[in-house]
C-alpha cells in the first residue's frame, strides 16, 4: 500500500482516534491487538506519562514494540514492577485502581455489550471464539471503558449471541441494576466513526465521522438502525507525527517478531 504523508488507512485512523481518547493521567488496563496499539501510540505522542497495565501482571510497562501476547517478555522487561496474576485481578483491577479499560470484541450491540465467546448457541456454536479472558471483570471494575473494533455489519449486531461482558445492558439505568457503579463504555472507536452512548438511553450514537466517511457507509456497516447525534462533527485527520509514530511502532514490531506479518 502506498503511503504518502497525507494518505492513511481506515485502520490507522481508528487506532489514532482511539489513542486520542486517552489522557496523560489515565491508568489504563490494556487488551491485546488494536487497544494495545492505541495505548502505546498515546504514550509515544500526547500522553507520555500514561500508566499501562497488562493482565499478565506488568504495571507501568513501556514496551518499545507491540507484544504479540498479553505477556511477552518486552512487557515485563520494561515494567516498573510485575505482580502475580491473582494480585493483578484482586488488588489492582477489583481494587478500583484502573481509570480506563480498553476492550475489543467479535460482536457489539447498540448498548455496547460485548461478545468474545461464541457465534451461535453456546453449546453448539457456529464459531467458537477465545472467550472472555479478563473482559468480564475489566468491563465492570474500570472507571470507564473504551472499545475499539472494525466497523462491520457482522460485528455491529442487533443482538449479540453471548453476553461476555456488560456494557449498558438493556440501556437506561440497567447497568446499575447489576450492582455496578462504574461508568461502563463511554466511547466506541471504529474505522468509520466515533460513537458515544446517549446520556439517557445509553444507546450508541455517532458523534464523529472520520474524514471522507459518509452516513450511508455507517448505516450500511451497522446491524441496527444507527442513530446520529444532532451535530456530527468530522474527526480531525491524522497528523504527520501521529502517522509517523504509529508506522514506526508497527515497523519495529514486525522486525522484532521476525517477519513481515
Amino acid at each position, binding site marked *: 500500500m502506498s503511503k504518502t504523508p497525507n494518505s492513511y488507512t481506515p485502520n490507522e485512523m481508528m487506532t489514532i482516534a482511539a489513542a486520542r481518547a486517552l489522557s496523560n493521567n489515565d491508568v489504563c488496563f490494556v487488551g491485546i491487538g488494536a487497544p494495545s496499539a492505541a495505548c502505546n501510540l498515546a504514550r509515544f505522542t500526547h500522553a507520555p506519562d500514561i500508566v499501562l497495565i497488562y493482565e499478565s*501482571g506488568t504495571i507501568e510497562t513501556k514496551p518499545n514494540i507491540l507484544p504479540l501476547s498479553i505477556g511477552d*517478555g518486552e512487557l515485563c522487561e520494561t515494567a516498573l514492577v510485575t505482580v502475580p496474576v*491473582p494480585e493483578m485481578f484482586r488488588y489492582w483491577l477489583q481494587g478500583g485502581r484502573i481509570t480506563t479499560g480498553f476492550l475489543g470484541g467479535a460482536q457489539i450491540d447498540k448498548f455496547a455489550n460485548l461478545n468474545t465467546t461464541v457465534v451461535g448457541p453456546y453449546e453448539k456454536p457456529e464459531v467458537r471464539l477465545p472467550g*472472555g479472558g*479478563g473482559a468480564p471483570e475489566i468491563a465492570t471494575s474500570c472507571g470507564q471503558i473504551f472499545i475499539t473494533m472494525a466497523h462491520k455489519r457482522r460485528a455491529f449486531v442487533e443482538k449479540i449471541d453471548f453476553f*461476555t*461482558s456488560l456494557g449498558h445492558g438493556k440501556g437506561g439505568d440497567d447497568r446499575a441494576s447489576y450492582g455496578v457503579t462504574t461508568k461502563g463504555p463511554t466511547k466506541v472507536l471504529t474505522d468509520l466513526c466515533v460513537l458515544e452512548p446517549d446520556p439517557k438511553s445509553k444507546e450508541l450514537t455517532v458523534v464523529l465521522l472520520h474524514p471522507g466517511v459518509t452516513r450511508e457507509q455507517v448505516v450500511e456497516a451497522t446491524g441496527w438502525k444507527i442513530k446520529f447525534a444532532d451535530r456530527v462533527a468530522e474527526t480531525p485527520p491524522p497528523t504527520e507525527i501521529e502517522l509517523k509514530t504509529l508506522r514506526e511502532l508497527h515497523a519495529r514490531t514486525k522486525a522484532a517478531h521476525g517477519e513481515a506479518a
Partner: protein
Amino acid sequence: MAAILSLAEAIEANLRDGDNVAMEGFTHLIPFAAGHEVIRQGRKRLTLIRMTPDLIYDQLIGMGCAEKIVFSWGGNPGVGTLHRFRDAFDNGWPNKIEIEEHSHAAMANAYEAGAAGMPFAAFRGYRGAELKRVNPNIKEITCPFTGEKLAAVPAMKLDVAIVHAQKADRKGNVLFEGIVGVQKEAVLGAKRSIVTVEEIVDTLEPHSPNAVILPGWTIGAVVQVPGGAHPSFAHGYYKRDNVFYKKWDAIARDRDSFRAWIDEHVLRKGPDAFAVHAKRAA
C-alpha cells in the same frame, strides 16, 4: 523434600490417567517439555486446567490426552484459533472433550483459594455476564457484613500441578522470576507437583529477600530441562518464539500435519531436544 528426577521419572511417578492437572504459566514459563513427556507416556482422560490453554493444551488435546478443559481464554495469543481444541470440541477428534469456562479473575481467585486451603473464592465478578448461565460452578453469595452480592467459584483442587521456573538449588528450592502468573498458587494448591527448571545450581543466592521462591519441601519433583518452556519464554534465559506461535497455526490446522509434527518433534524426541532453545540469546 523435592526429589530431583528425570522428566520421564517425574511424570511416571506423579501423573495418573484421569487426574486433574494444571500446567500453568501465564504466557511465560509454560512447561512444554513436561507436556511432551505426558504425550509420550500416553496419559488419558486428564482434566486439563489452564487460564490460557495455549499451544501446550492444543498438543495434548490433539493427542487424545484430555477429557475436559477448564479455561478462561482459549486462543493462540495474537494469532487466532487453537485448531486442535476446536476440532475436539466441534467434531470429537480424536475424542470428545467437555469444557468448563471461566473469566481470568475467577480462575486466578480459584487458584489462590486452592493455595489457601479455602473451599471457594469470593470476588466482585461476572456482573451482567452470561457465563454464569452456562457454568454451574459460578454462584452468587451475599457478603454477611455489607449485603453486597459477590460471585463465588470453587477453589482449584488439583491432583497435580506442573510448572517451569528459572532455577532450583540442590535441595529443590525453586526461584521464579518475571511474569510469575499463578505458578506458586497452583503448586501450593496441588496434592502432587513437578517443577521443571532451566538449571539446577548450588545456591539461589544472591536473591532479593522478597523473591518468589517455593521451598523444596512444598514440591514433589524437580527436573532440570534447559529450554523446557519453548516456544514460550524464560525471563533472563530466552525470548518468546513468536515466529513459532505463528507457524503453529498452519501446523495445527490440519490433522495430518499436526500428527506429523508431533511424531517428529515429540514422539521421536526426548527432553534433551529443548536444550537448543536455551542456547538462544535472551
